[in-house]
């Protein structure tokens, strides 16, 4: 989901001391891993860490399934964890027995995609909502109508990020359905609403951090972390949590079954559950992390950021969406094709 934090993803290889005791190979989203965190880990445990980037869950999964990749740790989005588990790609490293396990925030312990946290620990979590430039529109922003039925002020100025999963799920919730549904009346309603809204959109593009900062785009379906950064550049931009339903997601670190450096990987999993280290992750990519006590180590601007602290009355509207089953997925693709034809 974070593939567009920057336009050009760089292969971030973090060098370290030549005399490293061991190695650790991490497979993570591009521009998502704080180099300082890696350095600290390397110095603490005398391990040489290599970070390799991927740009989408499907490419990551495909590469790992193909084998021979040499990675120890992968950081998929929550919806992909069950797929990894089903395909037998992840190991159970005994996370509940780990020293820092108690730091896990209670709401992130018993999660749908990994009920007892047997396989994975939180990396970062965020939401997909809407970003709006209040110069253009000063009404209610906590609604998916921003893009599903744009107010007159925003017609022709709205962008929708081309994330099929998120957009169609939000459209479904907007028309009263649930994500990944196979209920055809709901799917039809969502499709019709999307097709009707599309002429009022300006684009379906990534790169909103730049385009909303400089005022090319006035509103967009967007991620909270990106919107945080936009607001730092352009204080007129606010983040909205659609009350009809918005998307919550979490990226999770897990150890691969065929990891060659399983011991170092376990050290790393424990390492990132430490509040101070988790704060390092967040301060780099600007998303929350799910470790209790990490707030104390975070930059001040993150502690109160409206993009990160979800208003109490809107928490319930946030939905985790799993990876849809094939049947639903094919309908999503059909709607998407219809939308972009």
């Amino acid at each position: 989901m974070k593939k567009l934090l920057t336009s050009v993803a760089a292969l971030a290889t973090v060098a370290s001391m030549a005399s490293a005791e061991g190695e650790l190979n991490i497979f993570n989203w591009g521009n998502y891993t704080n180099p300082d965190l890696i350095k600290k880990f390397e110095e603490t445990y005398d391990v040489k860490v290599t970070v390799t980037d991927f740009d989408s869950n499907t490419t990551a999964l495909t590469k790992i399934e193909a084998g021979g990749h040499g990675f120890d740790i992968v950081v998929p989005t929550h919806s992909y964890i069950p797929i990894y588990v089903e395909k037998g790609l992840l190991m159970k490293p005994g996370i509940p027995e780990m020293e820092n396990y108690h730091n896990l925030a209670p709401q992130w312990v018993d999660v749908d995609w990994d009920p007892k946290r047997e396989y994975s620990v939180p990396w970062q979590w965020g939401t997909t909502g809407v970003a709006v430039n209040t110069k253009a529109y000063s009404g209610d922003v906590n609604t998916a109508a921003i893009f599903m039925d744009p107010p007159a002020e925003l017609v022709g100025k709205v962008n929708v990020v081309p994330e099929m999963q998120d957009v169609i799920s939000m459209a479904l919730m907007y028309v009263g359905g649930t994500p990944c549904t196979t209920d055809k009346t709901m799917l039809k309603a969502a499709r019709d609403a999307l097709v009707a809204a599309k002429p009022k959109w300006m684009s379906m593009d990534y790169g909103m951090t730049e385009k909303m900062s400089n005022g090319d785009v006035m509103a967009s379906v967007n991620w909270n972390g990106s919107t945080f950064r936009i607001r730092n550049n352009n204080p007129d931009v606010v983040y909205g949590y659609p009350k009809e339903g918005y998307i919550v997601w979490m990226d999770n670190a897990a150890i691969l079954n065929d990891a060659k450096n399983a011991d170092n990987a376990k050290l790393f999993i424990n390492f990132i559950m430490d509040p101070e280290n988790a704060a390092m992750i967040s301060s780099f990519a600007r998303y929350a992390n799910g470790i209790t006590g990490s707030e104390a180590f975070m930059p001040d601007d993150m502690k109160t950021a409206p993009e990160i602290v979800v208003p109490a009355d809107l928490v319930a509207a946030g939905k985790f969406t799993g990876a849809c089953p094939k049947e639903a997925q094919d309908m999503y693709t059909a709607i998407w094709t219809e939308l972009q034809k």
Partner: protein
Amino acid sequence: MPSSSEDLAETARVRRNWLLSTPALVLLALGAAGPLLIVAVYSFLEAGEYSGVEWRFSLDAWFQILFHRDIFDDTISLADAHLTIFWRSVKLSLLTTIATFIFGFPTAYFIATRAPKQRALWLFLITIPFWTNLLIRTFAIMEVLRNQGILNTLLMKIGLITTPIQILYTDTAVLIGMAYVYLPLMVLPMYAAIDRFDFRLVEAGYDLYASRWQVLRRVILPIVKPGAIAGSILVFVPSLGAYVTPRVLGGGKNMMIGNFIDLQFGQGRNWPLGAALSMVLLVIVGAALLAYVRVSTKENPHG
């Protein structure tokens, strides 16, 4: 009519040429045919649940290209969305080819009629954009076209318009971008053709009562046609598969074939359909090339 002994000599020559080409053919087979074969095979498999393929034979992908099983009432109809996407790609590619020709021909003509020393410089300037990454060039075009961009700012400064014109994220922007990106591919073969052109034929044309327009249409264009066709193929083929330019400048609202194939391999998780679509793209390109061969051999039956 060639005599039969000439025929025999010709056959022997052809056989020897094939033999000499063996290493190149083997490389071609491995480098080009191999991956193609994989794509072809994948198009006949079932889509995996979350990505990749299941190794079970299926014609679903090919069926899906042309027909659309309505997700709501299961009726089967022509897949008009797919046809729309294909048609848009072909249309934009054709327009791009025409645009590059309209701008490329005078450019090539201009260069070919400079003093020999200057020509090298002009050709060099034409190829400069090639040194830059495609993505960067496309973003540069975006800087020009966007609402607060160079073009709109300029037009507003000189008072031609009061509000910015929305060019970015339209098919026009895609057309401008692709024409810009592929222009050199038209100019270079056109230049080669015009450079070989004997300009005394222009005088012969005027001498025989042809107007400027007639000289262009009846003398220059037919003779530089092979260059124009080569340039058109070079522009049309990559335009058809273009991915970055329509994505960035078109604003992603409307897909072209390249984006559609990407959707199947990525978010759509339907590799067989992606593979089948790639094969269809290949067939279109093949047809274009075949048409080229047809036209060029008809032009020069003894060549």
